[in-house]
């Protein structure tokens, strides 16, 4: 199809979807031309996911029409969408780890498509070269990195010769180098006439690669723009409305004395597809934020689990808090010594889903609210409502179940609860993952305030922008190795990006051998 074809590839007209208690999509109309890269922007809960799920046939709209290549269609299921030529790459990949790349792709194809293709492995190799995807059809998915998996998902769509590719936050899990590789693929596809719908939180990426953008807020289209004519700041303003005094650029601090030390930590993985930690050393000083960057699955989860004590293996001499060796203590004892944690998984690790906020507060504050062996419910209730108002947690009250809160609100609550213990050391993983701009700002400020009070903070995040914004010193993990530590002012995104890809490992290994 030519680029100047006047018929739009996809037209959404007045799409409306009502969920109980929430109008997810309110009269949304969007038009996509062939070959257009169209960004869908908005805070969490703005209705982006619901909208793309409607296009892909997972969610049925209550009202509205979908017009595909000039004809009105009803997309009842993902297979109907695929038959039309719509492909989607999910935020959480829909790959099967115990199968090969080729088997994964085969499962998505109908018998007819398979017959047309003939030798699937050959076709994959051919497409892989054509688009520079670098996908080996015979490898097992569990042995692939996150970036490679994403390319398998894209390959899955390419094999079916898609006309519209939907990408849900595709770059959130990639290193900067992988991101630019992805953009090259997208540009090639666009030139061939494939339309792309691109959901992202990262505005500079949108301005870099997208032709058009639609901004959603509260389920409505609030604005459209041509990203190349805007800056990330102006787009951010459209997304959040009025409260955008973002990107303030926080002051950097230098830590004072070392409060927490990790020495020669090496640990085999307990999970089949986990990462082995290899000789990790770092020190964490009072009054600083140490940021650890890295693509997901490079040892962050394992590091977090062993530091928090959730992984119960004895590493007595690896951890020093003040002058105390604490590697043999269990999680509760470490908490009593002044360590606090905010895990990545909010429901299930950070909070118990079907317990109230009050009860969840009690979980990590056990010493303060127990008198003569009895729980002081009145004071813990008061404390919980203080937390709720201080951190502006949107909920019905301190009796709300943790699972009834949205991800961002629950995260604010958990951060508040942990900070409220005045920890000496706070370990937190992905504190603003999936959190909207307003809540992220509140969480950032809470972290900085805690740092200024003299706490040592270890911040593990995949969001490299956030790390540059908050961290005073930085490092990266790759394949279970930790890079050297460097002051944030003395490094740049390229160097950290290369560290995330593992360029420091060879020198580190050589030094260890010498």
């Amino acid at each position: 199809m030519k680029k100047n074809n006047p018929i739009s590839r996809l037209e959404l007209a007045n799409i409306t979807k009502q969920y109980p208690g929430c109008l997810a999509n309110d009269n949304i109309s969007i038009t996509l031309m062939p070959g257009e890269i169209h960004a869908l922007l908005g805070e969490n809960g703005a209705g982006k996911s619901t909208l793309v799920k409607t296009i892909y046939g997972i969610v049925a709209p209550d009202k509205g029409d979908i017009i595909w290549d000039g004809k009105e269609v009803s997309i009842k299921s993902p297979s109907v969408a695929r038959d039309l030529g719509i492909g989607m790459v999910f935020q959480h990949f829909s790959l099967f780890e115990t199968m090969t790349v080729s088997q994964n792709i085969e499962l998505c194809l109908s018998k007819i498509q398979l017959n047309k293709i003939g030798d699937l492995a050959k076709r994959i190799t051919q497409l892989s070269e054509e688009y520079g995807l670098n996908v080996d059809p015979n490898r097992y998915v569990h042995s692939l990195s996150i970036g490679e998996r994403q390319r398998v998902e894209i390959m899955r769509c390419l094999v079916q010769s898609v006309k519209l590719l939907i990408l849900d936050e595709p770059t959130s899990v990639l290193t900067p180098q992988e991101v630019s590789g992805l953009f090259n693929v997208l540009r090639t596809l666009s030139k061939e006439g494939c339309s792309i719908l691109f959901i992202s939180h990262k505005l500079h990426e949108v301005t870099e690669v997208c032709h058009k953008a639609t901004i959603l807020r509260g389920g409505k289209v609030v604005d459209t723009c041509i990203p190349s004519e805007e800056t990330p700041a102006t787009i951010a303003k459209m997304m959040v409305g009025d409260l955008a005094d973002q990107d303030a650029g926080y002051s950097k601090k230098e830590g004072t004395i070392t409060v927490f030390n990790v020495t020669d930590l090496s640990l085999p993985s307990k999970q089949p597809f986990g990462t082995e930690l290899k000789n990790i050393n770092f020190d964490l000083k009072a009054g600083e934020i140490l940021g650890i960057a890295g693509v997901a699955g490079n040892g962050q989860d394992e590091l977090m689990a062993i530091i928090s004590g959730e992984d119960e293996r004895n590493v007595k001499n690896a951890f020093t808090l003040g002058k105390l060796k604490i590697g043999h203590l269990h999680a509760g004892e470490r908490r009593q010594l002044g360590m606090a944690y905010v895990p990545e998984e909010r429901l299930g690790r950070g909070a118990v889903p079907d317990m109230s906020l009050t009860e969840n507060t009690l979980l990590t504050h056990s010493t303060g609210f127990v008198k003569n062996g009895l729980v002081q419910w009145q004071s813990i209730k008061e404390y919980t409502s203080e937390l709720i108002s201080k951190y502006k947690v949107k909920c019905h009250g301190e009796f709300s179940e943790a699972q009834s809160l949205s991800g961002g609100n629950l995260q604010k609550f958990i951060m508040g609860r942990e900070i409220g213990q005045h920890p000496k050391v706070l370990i937190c993983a992905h504190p603003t993952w999936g959190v909207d701009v307003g809540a992220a700002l509140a969480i950032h400020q809470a972290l900085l305030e805690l740092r200024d009070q003299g706490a040592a903070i270890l911040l593990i995040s995949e969001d490299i922008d956030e790390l540059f914004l908050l961290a005073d010193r930085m490092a990266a993990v790759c394949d279970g190795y930790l890079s050297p530590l460097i002051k944030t002012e003395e490094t740049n995104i390229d160097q950290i990006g290369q560290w995330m890809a593992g360029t420091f490992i060879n020198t580190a290994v050589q030094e260890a051998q010498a």
Partner: protein
Amino acid sequence: MDADLIVQILFAAIKTGTPLLFIALGEVICEKSGVLNLGQEGMMLMGAVVGFLAAYGSGNMGFGILAAMAMGSIMSLIFAVLVLHIGANQVATGLALTIFGTGLSAFIGADFVGQTIQGFQPIAIPLLSDIPYVGRILFSHDILVYFSFFMTALLVYVVNKTRIGLTLKAVGENPHAANAIGIKVLRVRYLSVMFGGAMAGTAGAYMSLVYTPMWVEGMTAGRGWIALALVVFASWRVGRIMLGAYLFGLASIMHLVLQGLGWSISPNLLAMLPYVATVLVMVIIGADHFKEKLLAPRSLGKPFNPRNMA
């Protein structure tokens, strides 16, 4: 011990292992789709009693087997509706199914206890059964044993070589992803569970029509549970299930063998062997968590409801 005795022991091991093989083949398919059905014992008993009654009443053995298969499927359908559609807990529902089947089969069969029928006669396969030793061990059985050979071969092929097998594996590993690419997860699970039920029914019919051609209350004697262990022992690989079933079969007849050799160990102690073996296998495999996690279907025992996919 002479060669003749060894041939007899191995022949008997296959015969004893066959009901285990049937149930375990059904259960492995069920578990590969991500559903854990602990109701094997109940489905097997219902298959045994209904198979016996049908064959006794009609005088037709084939009809008995079909009736047992149908009964097993119906039992598993009850289970499937409860856990797949209504979202009941799989473990509790499976246990309930076993208790239900045990009680109901005893009730239905009460008047027929001790009646006997003429069981299946062995069919020696021409030529193959003439092979020295092997022919007598493998090719001088009744028709259901040959059917179990055939089913094993068929399932090895289907699971490892076909798209159906790939779909099954996909559903068991990640039902959400499978749903997203357009596989009808619940349909796959219903069919897998019902296949498991039919196989458990067949195993029951084997017990009451072939192994001991009569109906006795609780005659399956825990074989449904052993089969569950067998699936783990075989690490969810169909081919290995056959080997495991015959090893357990061998353990079950060890007391007869040792008695025959004149060892004076209490037969009651020896009769424990297959159950002790089951416990040991579970302990050995359970000790290696790493491996178990790697091999088990990821979504095993976890419910999936497509309507919750908002």
